[in-house]
């Protein structure tokens, strides 16, 4: 195994593109180190990027924020602007691991690890965030929702890597929230998860919404039917029930050591409903 710290993004893309063996990028390293140690992967090349310009900074952009790929959960949580604009995204990121893991873990790492249960991802999908990708052919942008391809897999091409996440500006009276279920309060992986981002009008009617679910399908998924269930409502009891039902109906989970199909399906609906209520409160609406 080689450990390399390239001087530029371009150099990193070239290195990664030319390597014939297994490559890994380390920024937080909290997944890669575990996989290496367990023998799950034996990379031939590990590339450390976090010293490169911009990768550890959060910068305002077009009313939203561009967040470098190596920004840790702890750093993100300390950024008042992001916390105020996208609290649901931040709470998802901050649920990854312990305080110690937060000191290193990044939302980009969480995304590119490809776990269906990744805590950072439903919030990003609900937020309609995009990532900027560097590769041998230069840079491109892509919606977060299009990155996961299945458990442990992404749509990134050979030599490609994410350099930043962009969280867009949002209208007034908007809010988002993320909830997951774990048996313990901390140090766990989501058994089911839901993120909701919504906007209400002056009367408290939901005018726009995005609902994303985690740990209930091979990838984190956007559930338009769940969003449709609450758009045009004040999130009254009927809308809440419709939301929960739509979320549960969209689930395609597995039975495993962490939870049953039945449990995940039911709880995903419950979480979607509860997250929507939190998002609504954050948007200033009332049900």
């Amino acid at each position, binding site marked *: 195994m080689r450990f390399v710290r390239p001087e530029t993004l371009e150099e990193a893309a070239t290195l990664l593109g030319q390597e014939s063996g297994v490559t890994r990028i380390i920024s937080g390293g909290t997944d890669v180190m575990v996989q290496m140690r367990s023998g799950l992967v034996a990379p031939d090349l590990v590339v450390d990027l976090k010293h490169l310009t911009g990768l550890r900074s959060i910068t305002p952009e077009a009313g939203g924020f561009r967040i470098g790929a190596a920004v840790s959960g702890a750093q993100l949580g300390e950024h008042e602007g992001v916390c105020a604009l996208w609290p649901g995204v931040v709470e998802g990121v901050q649920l990854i691991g312990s305080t110690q893991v937060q000191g290193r873990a990044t939302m980009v790492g969480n995304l590119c690890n490809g776990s269906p249960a990744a805590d950072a991802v439903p919030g990003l999908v609900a937020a309609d965030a995009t990532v900027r990708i560097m590769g041998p052919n230069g840079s491109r942008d892509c919606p977060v929702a299009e990155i996961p391809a299945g458990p442990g897999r992404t749509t990134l091409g050979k030599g490609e890597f994410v350099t930043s996440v962009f969280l867009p500006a949002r209208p007034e009276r908007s809010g988002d929230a993320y909830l997951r*279920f774990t048996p*313990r309060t901390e140090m*766990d992986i989501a058994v089911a998860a839901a993120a909701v981002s919504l906007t209400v009008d002056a009367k408290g009617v939901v005018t726009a919404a995005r609902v994303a679910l985690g740990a209930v399908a091979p990838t984190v998924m956007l559930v338009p039917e769940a969003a449709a269930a609450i758009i045009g409502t004040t999130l009254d009891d009927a809308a809440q029930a419709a939301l929960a039902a739509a979320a549960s109906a969209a689930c395609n989970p597995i039975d495993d050591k962490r939870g049953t199909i039945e449990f995940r399906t*039911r709880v995903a609906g419950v979480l979607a409903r509860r997250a929507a209520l939190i998002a609504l409160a954050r948007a200033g609406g009332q049900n």
Partner: protein
Amino acid sequence: MALDNTGQRVFKVVGTRPPRPDGVDKVTGRALYGADMSAPGMLVAHILRSPHAHAEIVSIDTSAAEALQGVKAVVTAADFTPQEDEYLDDILVNCLARDKVLYDGHAVAAVAATSADVAKAALKLIKVEYRKLPHVTDVDAAMRPDAPIVQSGRSLETVPEGMSENVTSHCEFGHGDLEAGFAKADLIIERSFTTAATHQGYIEPHACLATMGADGKGDLWCCTQGQYNVRSICADLLGIEASQLRVTASEIGGGFGGKTTVFIEPVALALSRKSGRPVKIVMSRSEVFLATGPTVSSSTDVKIGMTKDGRITAGQAHLRYSGGAFPCGTVDMGAQAAFAAYDLEAVQTLGWNALTNRPKEAAYRAPGAPQAIYAVESVVDELCQQLGLDPLEVRLKNAARKGTKSSYGPTFDDIGLMATLEAAKAHPHYSAPLGENQGRGLSAGFWFNFGGNTCVTLNVNTDGTVGITEGNPDIGGSRAAISQMAAEELGIPYDKIRTIVADTSSLGHNDVTDGSRVTFSVGLATIKAARDAISKMCSRAAQIWGIDEEAVVWEDGAACPAGPNAGKFPPMTLAEIAAVSFNTGGPIAGHYEFNADGAGVSFGVHLVDVEVDRETGGTKVLRYTVFQDAGKAVHPSYVEGQMQGGAVQGIGWALNEEYIYGEDGRLQNPGFLDYRIPVASDLPKIDTVILEIPNPGHPYGVRGVGETPIVPPLAALSNAVSRAIGKRLHSLPMSPPRILKALSEA
């Protein structure tokens, strides 16, 4: 040794909370644990483990591994001589599989090399040909006549004919006429329960450093609850004399029973003998889960009869335990402990142990008792619910007390159960209001406590300080308690004493740190060693004063003339006597060695409030109070610590911890991510109430306290959840999917 007249005794040091002697080492990172020791020229060893739950080993070819540069030794079972003694042979086969691998993760071979990388690369070069065999991991399945046989010919003569060969032992306890007892009942409830295997979950993985020369002399550094036990097992397995092997116990990062045996130590010694170099083995966390000893898994049927006014008329339990792939006697203890908290006219418990393709059980805090008492206390609680009775009143009505013929045979002497129940009843927790979806659970618990072989040497230094040498690793503050008892007895300040834990060559045999024995047994030996030293110091003073030895007594840390007739001499302090010891006959030391009995049983009562989220099945523990009889709490902080720590291990067992096996018989959760021990944010404050009902078998009244606290939480949590949701679960852990499923079943 009988209780001193403690009613009148005013303790000066015992009962206070001084800083522990090893405190600074442990808060500065200086304390050395198993993996913290190195030696010049040291090799690192790694172990090859079975990927199958059950398979015949057709062949092992280690030649390619041996040829790899940097590999200095490879061992397999072929490097050891099978032992005639079955107990020892089981330990050996567990350390390295012989003809068959018996569980996922069973060790097959080990490689010592110049680096961890080389050792790991060498493991990949070892060719093992397996022939897979059918496996069984569930205890009830293992007892069926058509179950795959884990090991043949291991059934004791106690097993009734016609049972599966996997059943290795059977036991029965009890007394009275069951039929007549049940006939007197107004309500009889019969239920079946299961509990998952759980792991002790000590934070420090097993580690050792072995050095063994061609001359047959060896040194072993390891984290263990008993260095003497490690020595005798390793000496036997390696065919060397015990005197030639010195075992030093490192500081120990938790054990809870799991470090009372060996897993890697004989392997490291064999590799060292073969390579002529020191060899270190440190287990990974997944190896700890896969191949060290969890507790038994269990399946239990309980039947209890009760009158309308809450009198238990008869109790019966059938316990089926599996201690993994080797015979295991834990069910005997469960069967004896099941009904120990009750005064019963008719009681019967039957137990069976069955082999399964799981790792060999190791003791875990009150081994066998939590599973059995969980089932019994659940049924008692359900009877109370159905008869509309207060569960605490019912326990008071039926509680075992002095003079009760216990469910396991003997008649109880002074025990603290009644007082403990009364304390719970009087506590504000018991009457505090509960909210919606909240429930309060109660359970009693019991453990036998043991004494055992113990040696202590107490050296009086010429500057008036005292050194104590004892032989039990300090797993939770025992150095402090031992120093306190010596200070109490000698009448000198606590900080004039330093207690150290000896290696096996520096002190006679000491049994393992288990059975809640150390503060009781080592404390008792320390008191006796102090009295031995005191008599010698009195004799020196008598010599100096020119009076009879009998005319000298020891008071407040000094020798004094026994009365006016003895003569008028100012008291001579310990320091004064010590200062002239070279002139009065030489160094002064006290010794005591014995096999301690009379540990005195221990009872505890736990109260817990929970709130259940009806939509997710999640359980939150809101409030927790532990009531326990400590006999005499020598260092109350560490007594509270035992009570709190045991309670939290029990909470984990009740709610989330479990060994999960797949269809393929492989362990699915060998790590702290999916084997969920409680974290700080899962828990409320754990309140403690220490009762002190003196143990008649100890001069200060001390009882063991370490094990009992893990017993009540299982039923206490289950009873609380049942009362919160109006449904009773019969399986542990009560994980959220199980609770949600119970809620959705109308």
